[in-house]
């Protein structure tokens, strides 16, 4: 058949044979999902009308059609989430389309070893995301009061003539900002290091600005962990412990999961 195929993810062929695919609606709301069995790998996909999507118009819609992006992103996410509960799944990137089944089969066959390796990495494990936020102003006040280097500098400045004090205070402000960043990184890194002990793998992601999060406090850490299913509760208890211990000192912890293994099944 020569139509566009939207692929949600790849699952081990044995699992797909043992667990029938539930009825799930396709990307365009017409037609359902179906399995494409290959040797070791089964793709979960749906058909799209040929000619309805091109690389250019998908990118254009992602950039310019927020309604479409919101609806389709949720569809992709919800579908992959449901499938991940049933199968060990290597999730595909949003809008990964193949022009026909033969093309998909060739691509999968060429990467079969890598795909089966990805299955073995994620089997029985869960992906969790942790975002750590900090109220910069409160921590800054604390750092400014208690950091020995800043205290010493402040005492030194107080001995200077008024004119020089002005410029030295400006420099001191910069020092406080630098020490604040240092403190935030130090604390976040040590938490990440500690939490990594519960995980098979841990990756650090880029922090988002307040424009993106819509929050008043700042994101100081954004990381993902691949955790054995049996360790998840201990990991989350640890996060909760940090949350309780550090709530009063302007830190907040937001864990989310389990996610489909987006970060730990990628291969090039």
């Amino acid at each position, binding site marked *: 058949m020569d139509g*566009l195929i939207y692929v949600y993810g790849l699952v081990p062929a044995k699992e797909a044979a043992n667990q029938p695919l539930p009825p799930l609606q396709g990307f365009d709301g017409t037609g359902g999902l179906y399995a494409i069995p290959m040797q070791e790998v089964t793709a979960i996909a749906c058909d799209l009308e040929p000619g309805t*999507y*091109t*690389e250019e118009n*998908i*990118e254009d819609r*992602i*950039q*310019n059609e*927020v*309604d479409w*992006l*919101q*609806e389709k*992103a*949720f*569809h*992709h*996410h*919800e579908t*992959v989430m449901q499938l991940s509960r049933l199968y060990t799944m*290597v*999730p*595909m*990137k*949003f*809008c*990964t*389309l*193949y*022009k*026909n089944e033969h*093309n*998909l089969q*060739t*691509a999968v066959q*060429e*990467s079969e070893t890598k795909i089966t390796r*990805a299955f073995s990495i994620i089997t029985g494990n869960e992906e969790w*995301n942790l975002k750590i936020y900090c109220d910069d102003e409160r921590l800054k006040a604390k750092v400014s009061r208690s950091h020995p280097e800043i205290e010493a500098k402040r005492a030194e400045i107080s001995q200077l003539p008024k004119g020089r004090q002005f410029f030295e205070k400006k420099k001191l402000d910069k020092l406080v900002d630098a020490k604040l960043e240092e403190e935030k990184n130090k604390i976040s890194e040590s938490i990440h290091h500690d939490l990594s002990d519960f995980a098979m793998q841990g990756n650090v992601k880029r922090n*988002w600005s307040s*424009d*993106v*999060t*819509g*929050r008043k406090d700042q994101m100081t850490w954004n990381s993902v962990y691949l955790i054995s299913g049996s360790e*998840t*509760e201990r990991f*989350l208890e640890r996060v*909760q412990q940090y949350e309780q211990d550090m709530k009063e000192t302007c830190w907040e912890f937001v*864990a*989310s*999961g*389990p*996610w489909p293994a*987006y*970060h730990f*099944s*990628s*291969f090039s």
Partner: protein
Amino acid sequence: MPIQDSLENKDIALIDILDVILDKGVAIKADLVISIAGVDLVYLDLRVLIASVESLVQAQQRERKTVSSEQFDRQREALIDATGQPDKWKN
């Protein structure tokens, strides 16, 4: 109740979803495959971000619900009413 159960049904912001599905996941290259390039979040329309704020508001309510587009639509309308901002989703 285990912590995991309480988190599993927590709403996930659209921005969190976009961060992974546009950037991560697998796209096996082959001739004729259509696959988008990695899209940087900073280039996405800021309107998307309102959905993120909506989800945070809802997360604070600690309600157990599953995420759905309809739910977001309702919240978006409520947020727009509350903030008095024009509905940028409508043409």
